[in-house]
Every structure is written in structure tokens, then in C-alpha cells.
């Protein structure tokens, strides 16, 4: 929504390629273009298991399925998450990871940029 000079950071969307039209009209059709917002969700959240609690907001990186804080491996992506991220990175999206504290646990939240 909106107009002005800056978007709201919580309202981020990928514009999908139009569904392929069949027949007349401008309303779209039963096409097969994909919903990139489902394939590459705005965020992915992974439970972390660091040896010591990490500072909240710390930057996390991905090395294959491993979630890394500096040199320390602090978590692991599931197979499904790894597949999603690999595909989305190939599509040109970048995910930036940060440590988030929630209900006594630590999570890595990877946000689509």
C-alpha cells in the first residue's frame, strides 16, 4: 500500500509473472506461472543451538546447510529449508540472517532482501 518516499519494511512482496491468459479478457487465467511469494517466503525461521547464548541481532551466515556465527556452527537448516533457500538464491533473492530471542529460545530469522 501507499505512496510517498519509503516503503514499510514489513510489507514486502515479489510481483509474480502474470498467469498465462487463456481465451479473451484481461482477468488472467489458469496459467502456470508460480507464486514466488510462496516459493521464496519473506522470512524463514530456524531454531539455533549455540553453545553459549548469542547476542540478539547478531548477523548469521549460511554455509550450505550450516548456520554460522563467525566461525561457530550454531544451527542447521532442514532439508526443505535448504531446498527453498538454494532455489531462491538461484532466482536472485538474498536472505539476510539475524539472531532473535523468543520465549527463552534463540532463532535464526532469515529475511528476504
Amino acid at each position, binding site marked *: *500500500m501507499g*505512496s510517498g*518516499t519509503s516503503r514499510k519494511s514489513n510489507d514486502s*512482496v515479489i*510481483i509474480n509473472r502474470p498467469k498465462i491468459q487463456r481465451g479473451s479478457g484481461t482477468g488472467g487465467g489458469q496459467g502456470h506461472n508460480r507464486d514466488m511469494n510462496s516459493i521464496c517466503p519473506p522470512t524463514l525461521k530456524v531454531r539455533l543451538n549455540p553453545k553459549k547464548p548469542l547476542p540478539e541481532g547478531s548477523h548469521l551466515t549460511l554455509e550450505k546447510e550450516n548456520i554460522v556465527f563467525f566461525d561457530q556452527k550454531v544451527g542447521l537448516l532442514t532439508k526443505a529449508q535448504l531446498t527453498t533457500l538454494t532455489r531462491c538464491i538461484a532466482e536472485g533473492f538474498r536472505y539476510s540472517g539475524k539472531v532473535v530471542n523468543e520465549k527463552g529460545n534463540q532463532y535464526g530469522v532469515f529475511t528476504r532482501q
Partner: protein
Amino acid sequence: MGSLHDNDETHTKSLFSLLCESGEFFPYIHTDEASVVKSSCQENGRRNIITCKDKNLNEFLLEVNSLDMNTVHLNGVDILLGEYIPVIPRKFFKSSATFIPQKIVAISLSDIFVSPPLNLKDKKYHVSPTLKINRKVLYNPVFKNKKVILLSDARDVLLEHLWWNRKKIKLFDILARIGFYAVSTPNFSLFKGECPMGHAWNIKKGLIYGEELEKRGVMVIPHIYAVHVKQLERWCDWLKRNPSVKTVAMNCQLQRKSIVGRDIAVNALKHILANTDVSIILNGSDKRILSQLEKFKTRLYTASSGAFKNLEIKKQMSPFLYKSWIENTRKVSATP
């Protein structure tokens, strides 16, 4: 005047503006519009907007039957509204309609679903997996004997989801059958600094949306956004070619929050009001915007849910409070 913000430091062309090729789509995009582009049109991954460099641009243009606004003709409406249109939030749907003196009220698009359409997870909005329009939303007590305008203002996540799935979910058929008095077209985003191709495409999407609703017998109120004077000129030209459109809408909820945003809104409103004879429903406007438009006051209507939200916060909803609030808003004009 090019930019709609008088003190704009972005008058100087950036490298991005020099590389923007949207001007090739003249007359539907003027070359001057590229002068305020502040981000790369190349490989933006279709984040929030499409650009002139999109490798599948033709598909997007085909979807809206070119960027020419004049391929869409709308009948529009000429509604005599009160100075203030209450926008009734979901939490008040079970309240009695007698609390609200206005005959014409409004509802926000986000509130016509069975449950909230978006979930905020990890600071990002996601579309609810159980998204479903409540076809009987107007059966709620608060709408009894009211004429209800649907203001299709919502977050991009929701608007783009609905647009992309419009055929699959039979969006226009469902909206037409609910029985709204009138429906505004969505406020597809226009942010300054982004590629004018995306702006033009979003403007056209809104018109197509309105056209689909009118085909189904709905009274349509076009929503207008513009961040460049050339866009305003095209809007005014379109309004002159569609003279029965006498009421339009503009959402100011985001614009009102910054000086630059308010400048953009006020300049756009002044241009439209001075160059056409339309009346404008301002959704979420405030005194800082309205005070600059005093001479056009009779053609401005304020739609707002602010009073309900204040009551909700205080948890003191009662007929007495509501009536006293109404009295108060009359004294301070139309700015709740």
C-alpha cells in the same frame, strides 16, 4: 514542476535515473519521470514493483492491455457524501448501527475476510493460508440500513496476492455480489524513486480492476496516486475523458506521516482539484493535509477509522462516548 515535492534534493539525476528506459514508453510515461529514479531498474527481482528492464515486461504489459490509461472507460459515480465517512473496523461489526449517525459508512478491504488476511511473522506480513472473503460481511449489525463503501486500501502483500489470484478466487464476482454501495479501486503503490514503469503498470492495474467491477454492475470509485506531475496530467486527462467519474479516492495513511509524503499528497490533491471537478474521499487524512486544502473543502470527504480505534483503546465503547465524539468532530471540522 516535475517532482511533487518542492524541496526535493533528488532533482539532480542519479546514475539510476540516467539508465532508466521507461521514457521509451512515451506518451504513457514521460521521459522526465525517470529523472527521480533512485534505485536500479536492472535485476530488481520484481521486489515490490516491476521495472523497465524486466525481461518479461511484455507479459506484464499484455496483462493490462498496454500502459495507455485510455483503454479503460469507467462510468464512476457522483455520490453526495457527508463531510466525514466512518470506516468501521472489524471489532465493531457486532455493535448496533444506531451508534453511528451517518447513513454512508465505509469498510476496509482487510476487514471483509472471515479472519484477518495477513499474519505478522518475524516482522514481515504473510498472507493467511486460510484467506477467505466473508460474503455475508454486510449482514453484521453495525451495517444495518447503511450504505457501505468498500475502500480497497491494503498492504501490498494482500493487494498483489488478490490481483494475481483474481481469476482463481473469482474476486470480482464475489465483490460484486456482496452488495457494497460503491467500491474504490485498490491503492497499488507508487513510491517516489522507483521505476516509473512500475508506477504506470500499477495505475493501469487499478483501472482494470475498476473496469472488471463495473462490468458486474458495481459503482466504482477510482483510487488516485501520483508522485510526478506528468502522472497527474495523465490522471486529469483521463478524468476529462471519463466525465461521469465525479468521485475519486486517495489513501493518505502513509503519506501523512512525513513532511515529504504530505507535500506529495497535498500537491497531487491541489492539482486534481484545480484541474478537474471531482470530489475526493481522503482515507486517513489529517489536519496537516486538510488545512492546506481549505479552499477545496466542499469537495473533500474524510474517511477514517480513528474514532473507533480510539474507543477500542480506551475500551469504553458506549453510545454516550460515541455521540460526544461525533459532536466534537463536528466542531473541529472533518478531522477525527
